[in-house]
């Protein structure tokens, strides 16, 4: 009997199969991942998560007899009351006596625990940031190692055997170390002479010469090592600083009285997506929340979404604040700057001229991308949303036409968020794909 310890064998043999299953179920999994956008806060979204897909999504059919119909008989244990000939009502549903034996299979849905990577991959499948040129690569952070030739000192685990042997060989050749073949040739010659029953005349002399030669060879072989410590070569690695790209995302939201909870929810979903997206492209993403009525303030996430501040609307105040924060902390030469603005578009007409000039002259030049999301009431039909325009929309429209890094969309239902987001950030250059 053998005992073999397999515990150290690599586990995860099923990993490939699991990935193939995921790929196979991709459509269902993607849907489930997108649905999970509900009820997660902006920063939670990027965590690993569990999703559920329906079991019959991927069914493996076999030829088997139907669960119902025909005449069946079945033997069951645990009779307490029945006598032969008794009649019993057919149980409801397919279960019980009506189904085939062996059909009690577990009908639970699949639940996957997706890693963060898998989750994001599926979530952001197909998306890409526009104008991904990074303005500034910050160096200094040590990230990885790379090979850097060979050294004479090092850790035994880094010993390069081929390189060491190569060195040893060239040294042996240079110092003329006698080879094993030289030695055995001499020894053979000696043995041959010694084996002669009738020695020849000069045998004694030859023998002595040969023995001397042999001693010489052995001495040299001992003197000149096969491998010497000077031959050792180690693979060398050196740390390499890798550039770290950083980005900041500004969330601008109108919290004036006209913004309903529903609108804020729409905005939140959009910001969540954007944040998720940025954290995937950059190692470091800062988020700045700015809300405004007729005055703007920088706040934390909770306040941003749940504060009850109210008042009039002055969009320019938020833009001023944005410019102020950028000047203070996020120099455009160091940071990639993204802005997402959500508003119902209800603004003071007198403010519009200032808004447009701020956008055109100051903000858009330093911004990688500015997305304006106009949120509408839930009950508004999308037709109305599409035809009627607001003050801010009208003001922004010409800006949008003249600037590639500015985009604006209207959303009135949360199911529109994701398509709009995809549309805003879809890969450019591969033709303007419009499908969601």
């Amino acid at each position: 009997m053998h005992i073999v310890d397999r515990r150290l064998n690599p586990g995860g043999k099923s990993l490939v199969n699991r990935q193939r299953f995921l790929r196979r179920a991709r459509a269902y999994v993607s849907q489930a991942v997108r649905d999970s956008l509900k009820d997660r806060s902006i920063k939670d979204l990027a965590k690993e998560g569990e999703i559920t897909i329906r079991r019959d999504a991927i069914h493996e059919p076999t030829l088997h007899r139907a669960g119902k119909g025909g005449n069946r008989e079945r033997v069951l244990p645990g009779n307490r009351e029945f006598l032969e000939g008794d009649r019993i009502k057919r149980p409801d549903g397919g279960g019980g006596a009506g189904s085939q034996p062996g059909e009690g299979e577990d009908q639970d849905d699949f639940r996957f625990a997706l890693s963060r990577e898998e989750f994001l991959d599926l979530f952001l499948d197909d998306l890409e940031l526009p104008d991904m040129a990074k303005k500034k690569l910050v160096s200094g952070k040590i990230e990885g190692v790379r090979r850097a030739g060979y050294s004479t000192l090092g850790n035994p685990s880094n010993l390069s055997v081929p390189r060491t042997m190569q060195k040893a060989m060239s040294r042996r050749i240079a110092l003329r170390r006698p080879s094993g073949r030289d030695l055995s040739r001499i020894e053979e010659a000696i043995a041959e002479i010694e084996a002669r029953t009738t020695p020849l005349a000069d045998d004694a002399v030859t023998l002595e010469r040969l023995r001397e030669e042999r001693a010489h060879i052995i001495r040299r072989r001992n003197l000149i090592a096969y491998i010497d410590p000077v031959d050792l070569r180690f693979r060398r690695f050196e740390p390499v600083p890798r550039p770290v790209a950083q980005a900041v995302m500004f969330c601008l939201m109108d919290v004036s009285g006209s913004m309903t909870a529903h609108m804020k929810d729409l905005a939140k979903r959009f910001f969540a997506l954007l944040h998720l997206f940025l954290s995937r492209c950059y190692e470091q993403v800062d988020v700045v929340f700015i809300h405004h009525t007729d005055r703007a303030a920088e706040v934390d996430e909770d306040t941003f979404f749940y504060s009850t501040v109210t008042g009039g609307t002055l969009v320019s105040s938020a833009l001023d604040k944005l410019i102020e924060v950028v000047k203070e902390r996020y120099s455009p030469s160091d940071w990639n700057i993204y802005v997402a603005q959500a508003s119902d578009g209800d603004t003071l007409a007198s403010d519009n001229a200032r808004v447009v000039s701020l956008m055109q002259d100051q903000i858009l030049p330093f911004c990688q991308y500015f997305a304006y999301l106009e949120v509408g009431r839930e009950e508004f039909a999308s037709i109305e949303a599409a035809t009627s325009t607001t003050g801010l929309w009208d003001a922004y429209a010409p800006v949008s036409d003249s600037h590639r890094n500015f985009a604006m969309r209207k959303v009135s239902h949360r199911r529109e968020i994701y398509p709009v987001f995809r549309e805003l950030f879809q890969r450019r250059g591969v033709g303007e794909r419009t499908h969601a």
Partner: protein
Amino acid sequence: MTVAFAPAPLFTGSDWDFSLINRIYETVEPIALQEMKLNIYPNQIEIISAEQMLDAYSSIGMPLFYKHWSFGKQFVTNEMLYRKGLRGLAYELVINSDPCINYLMQENSATMQTLVIAHAAFGHNHFFKNNYVFKQWTDAEGILDYLEFAKRYIAQCEERYGQLAVERVLDAAHALMNQGVHRYPRIRPRDMKAEAEREAERQAYRDRIYDDLWRTVPVGAKAASVPRDERRAALGLPQENILYFLEKTGPRLDSWQREILRIVRLIAQYFYPQRQTKAMNEGCATYTHYRIMTILHDRRWITDGAFMEFIQSHTNVVYQPTFDSGHFGGFNPYSLGFGIMSDIERICMDPTPEDRDWFGDIAGSRDPVEVLKDIWANYRDESFVSQFLSPHLIRQWRLFQLLDRESESELRVEAIHDERGYRRIRRALAREYDIARQEPDIQVVDVDLAGDRTLMLEHAVTDGVVLDASDAAMVLQSLANLWGYEVALSEVDAESRKELKNHRCQPQPGWIG
């Protein structure tokens, strides 16, 4: 036995190490081989982690297997149940191979390891080696080599023809897996190792003689029509093994596609004995471990505490809920097998007059293990139940038979555990274990060679139970794809020959090649 002479127990507490496993094995072995006279393949014991057990589970328990998404699906299901605590992992996994490979989980306590060794390394092992169905069908020596070959072959195909193309063939073959076995030993079991070598030779030969010019040779005129009987005889029809039929005669399959069908078919055939002997196999292992653990305890090799732990898991394993308990999901094969086998032991040792009437040849024979060994060797579940389910057990389990007729609105109690019912219940339960009865009888009956090459299948319907329509449609689609032309399945009542239902399916264009 007096306490003064009792040996020290093998272990106290639940920790184990390799030397303890060795000692346990060396204590159990003589009991199994000398006292019970079991006949086993050499054992190999492998210690694995829970995660590896999950892995092994998901490839039908085999240590190596080709890659396919359905195993990933298995894994996800098992893992989910395990994580939710809905299902514990099996304590053991044993492979019908020579040497017999036994997996022990590192999380098991010392008692559980003892139990697993007795259960798998001796019980299952003996059953695999001696039962006639296994002897007839499986090649314990060659299976691992064959799986190795299959894995490599399929990986090569993926490289050559693309993962997707291979996956399509595998999906289609899996759907027909249950229709991929020879139920009767008409064709001798093969030596799986030689099988793998033969295929390598075939491939090498094909590569050698490959000549692209042949592609350009004009195809001759359509063959003249042949009389039906001659045609059927030439094609070996009727044929119940659909995968075999496709592999041999499918007109549009490439040789690698045929080889994949062959792999799936041979693996299905390898597992076919297990499907026919589930209750007996588990019964044999459970009976063996029960007997060995009891002996160990009697002789004080294991402590009272360990024995209690054993009894508890044993009881869980053989628990059989009643039909109205809400947990009922059919008969528990462990419970059924072990129940009948313990009952046989009782009949041998201490028969009642009723037992003498029913089991004249074994009642009072006083040597239950010899009787059981004969049974383990020569029966499968169906014949086992139909021969050895005793009135005593029928009463004890309070078995009854229900009849569900489509034409009637109520179920009828056909038989209960009384004088009139014993034989009927026994016969009926045996029928439930008859795979040939439980699975639809589907055969390839003809091919329209003169016309559009439609493949014609027939399902001989018994008791008016037709195929599950939606699954049948999907499987037929796979079948049509493999065949390359239309497929027609007719469901015909086995007795009246009246056609009840009829399915047709066209292959999806571009599926092959």
